[in-house]
């Protein structure tokens, strides 16, 4: 994974980009809540109809936003494994398949809207709106730090991976690949904890009292 993939905001001159962040965030939250609130009892044709209509709506927004459709689809595809993973759990329920498709359609539509939101609205703008909405400050600080250090962590894991590769010779068994990955993750965790302490010190040094 490289850093470019993490950068969700895509600056463009478009109608959607110009819309105030508060409006976009409000619409996205409304969209997600609306989809979650849809009753389960409806048959597949109705769900399909709603899904189709929603898809047309989202597609229009996507075109208006002048983003590359390929980029949006790629981001969505990246998130789909999670959707299918969670949806698969419903297969154990009665009427499993119906519940499965309900979950897949709903979650995909939710995620598609969020991908669009993230691509057209800078993260710092969203945080600012959330602050205006009186979302607890601690949560916002956590989100902001996450956004900032995701990049640092990805770069760091990339460096560790390269260092490992540069001293790896010959064919690698599957076991050693997995072992390497596990060690990298473990190291990354230890380093992150140490880094978190240094960041906290840096925050305190500039007057942080939270």
């Amino acid at each position, binding site marked *: 994974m490289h850093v470019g993939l993490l950068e969700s905001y895509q600056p463009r001159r478009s109608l959607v980009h110009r819309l105030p962040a508060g409006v976009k965030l409000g619409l996205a939250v409304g969209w997600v809540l609306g989809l979650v609130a849809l009753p389960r009892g409806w048959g597949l044709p109705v769900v399909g109809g709603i899904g189709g209509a929603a898809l047309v709506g989202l597609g229009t927004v996507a075109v208006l936003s002048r983003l590359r459709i390929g980029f949006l689809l790629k981001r969505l595809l990246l998130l789909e494994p999670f959707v299918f993973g969670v949806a698969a759990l419903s297969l154990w329920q009665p009427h499993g398949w119906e519940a499965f498709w309900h979950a897949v359609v709903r979650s995909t539509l939710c995620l598609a809207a969020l991908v669009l939101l993230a691509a057209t609205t800078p993260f710092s703008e969203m945080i600012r709106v959330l602050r205006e909405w009186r979302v607890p400050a601690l949560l916002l600080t956590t989100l902001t730090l996450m956004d*900032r250090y995701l990049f640092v962590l990805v770069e760091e894991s990339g460096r560790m991976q390269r260092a490992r590769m540069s001293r790896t010779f010959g064919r690698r068994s599957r076991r050693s690949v997995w072992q390497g990955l596990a060690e990298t993750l473990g190291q990354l965790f230890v380093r992150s904890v140490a880094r978190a302490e240094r960041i906290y*010190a*840096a925050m*305190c*040094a500039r*007057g942080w*009292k939270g």
Partner: protein
Amino acid sequence: MSAALEIRALSFRYDDGRAALDGVSFAVEAGECVGLLGPNGAGKSTLLLHLNGILPERLPDGAAVFVGGMALNPENLPSIRQRVGLMFQQSDDQLFCPTVWEDVAFGPRQMGLLKEELGERVRSCLARVNLAGFEHRRPHQLSQGEKRRVCLAGVLACEPGVLVLDEPTSDLDPRGRREFKALLASIPATKIIATHDLELVVELCPRSLLLDGGKLVADGPTVELLADEALMLRHGLEKPHILQHRHPHAKMPLD
């Protein structure tokens, strides 16, 4: 008048019992620029972290650090953190906000500055480090030198009287180092600079402290200290090239 910064018999042990600082005492007058030298693991960073109360985690009853005559205790901690600006060794640890503007605004915001005043402070600090126009950049899009300068702007934005820098030039290329040195020279605050960059010390700091094994082993004019080859070698350092062919009593070698 009391010293800008005074340390009296400061000792510190890590949780695992290792002694990091052992009875360190010195004073720095207002406007002085002091180099802090020593090999890796000498306790330089640990000492710096004490200067605005990041360490120890629990402040003891008897204070060992005095800033402008004010004892560093829990009561004075907020105002001491405002007076002593600390710049950390790794810029990525210090740049914890999503944009350059936000990061420079962090300190002043904690001090209660708002809106126009805040905007003006951030603007002037960025201009001071020659980064006007960088407000909306994200930290991972900056070069090392730019990161360093944003860090400095973030510290300057709190308007500290004492500036404490930990290895400010360690990851810079020669041009970045030259620019950063010029920048530091232009700041009138009292400065304490921990570094292995001996040329920087020679150029900026008339006086230096030498720390080794948690003890203060020397305190004097930089040029005399660095020219003492035996002392330097004994403490894991070297006489810098810039002094190799100079008389040890010459005042400032780059005049």
